[in-house]
């Protein structure tokens, strides 16, 4: 249901983009999209495809060994507290993790945070047999744990190894981030914060520590900080060859 409406949105947007270009009236899109800034969504209104949330990671500013974004995510969403004592490191939750990469030919190294890339056409949504894995109208990819049956197809389909499975009974979850045994979970882009006009916990922590490696914002708002940065600086999608149009972009790799 949500999948088909999302695909409709994407098709409509592509059509509008083409129509706008054809008419040479690029001003239409900004005029429409910018009339309502992101912070204007009243609490009782549904999210719309007028926004698309994204994160730009500047790996030039990511220090090796820094784990601030991961810690912030753990504290916000209540995972990683060793609440699954029987599980091994590969089985435990990893909503966000730091990855060290190295070019073997040159020895060039980088550290970057890896999490759900919030694809426009997410493979996890394609393979989900129940519709639990879905993409919200504003581009955030989520698991509806109420209808997740724990089959883990999405974990297999995700090219980024972004999802993890809860193997054990959990206690003391956060009210804003329910999680439980038998369901798959991943980065929610702190949807509970985004809906209340706040930035994700990882972005907030990165700025608070003065690293400023993460920029969060609306990819469709051309005046947003992230859109300006994407326009002025070179940046890449990881596994761009898959054509997923990710919401998380990287600089410096």
């Amino acid at each position, binding site marked *: 249901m949500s999948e088909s409406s999302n695909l409709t949105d994407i098709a409509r947007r592509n059509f509008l983009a083409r129509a706008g270009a054809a008419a040479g009236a690029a001003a239409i899109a900004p005029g429409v999209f910018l009339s309502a800034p992101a912070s204007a969504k009243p609490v*009782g209104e*549904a999210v719309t495809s007028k926004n698309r949330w994204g994160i730009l990671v500047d790996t030039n500013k990511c220090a090796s060994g820094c784990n601030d974004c991961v810690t912030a995510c753990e504290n916000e969403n209540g995972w990683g507290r060793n609440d699954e004592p029987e599980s091994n490191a590969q089985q435990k939750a990893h909503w966000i993790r730091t990855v060290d990469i190295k070019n073997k030919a040159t020895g060039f190294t980088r550290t970057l945070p890896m999490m759900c890339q919030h694809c426009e056409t997410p493979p996890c949504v394609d393979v989900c047999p129940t519709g639990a894995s879905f993409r*919200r109208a504003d581009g955030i990819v989520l698991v509806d744990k109420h209808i997740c049956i724990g089959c883990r197809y999405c974990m297999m389909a995700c090219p980024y190894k972004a999802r993890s499975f809860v193997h054990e009974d959990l206690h003391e979850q*956060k*009210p*804003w981030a*329910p999680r439980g045994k038998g369901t798959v979970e991943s980065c929610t882009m702190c949807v509970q914060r985004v809906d209340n006009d706040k930035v994700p916990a990882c972005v907030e922590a990165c700025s608070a520590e003065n690293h400023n490696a993460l920029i969060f914002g609306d990819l469709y708002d051309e005046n947003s900080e992230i859109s300006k940065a994407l326009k002025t600086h070179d940046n890449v999608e990881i596994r761009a060859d898959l054509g997923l149009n990710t919401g998380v972009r990287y600089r410096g790799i």
Partner: protein
Amino acid sequence: MSHFSPASRLFVLVLSLLLLLPLAATADSDEEGETEALPFSDLSFPEPARHFSAEQKCVAPDEEMRKNHMKYILHQRDETMHEGIRTRQYSLEECVNCHAVKNDEGDYIPVNAPDQFCYSCHSYAAVNIDCFQCHATKPVRPSMLQTLSSSDAHPESEMLGGDIKQLLASEGPAQ
């Protein structure tokens, strides 16, 4: 007319008596039911920490909540999960915020613990609650419903309260 044997006449008589018996019994119990206690009325569970408003104890009238609380929660669940609608009145977190009570040491008791609000009725009715395998069972942050129902809202919460109030006014009953 005489081709029915006495035995078969007796059989028909007994059969019709048997058929009528439940009707009579139902009529009897209906009359008595008015004086009998309602189901669940012998259950005891902790009183919620506070009332929704001076006029109304819970977020909807008691009779409505007893019968349909799960529909409110289900409706809110889908709206929040898929559409990002985070109104507070029918959110499960606010259920817990009011219905979880503290023990003598001042610590919150999980709302689904035996003898607590959720469990007492659900065990009586033999209906499993799945909510709390994932959802928090104790209050973690202050209720935002207080700002809704209290007339002397804090200045900083006035905007939020007004926003939600306006929203609630436009919200129909849960489907």
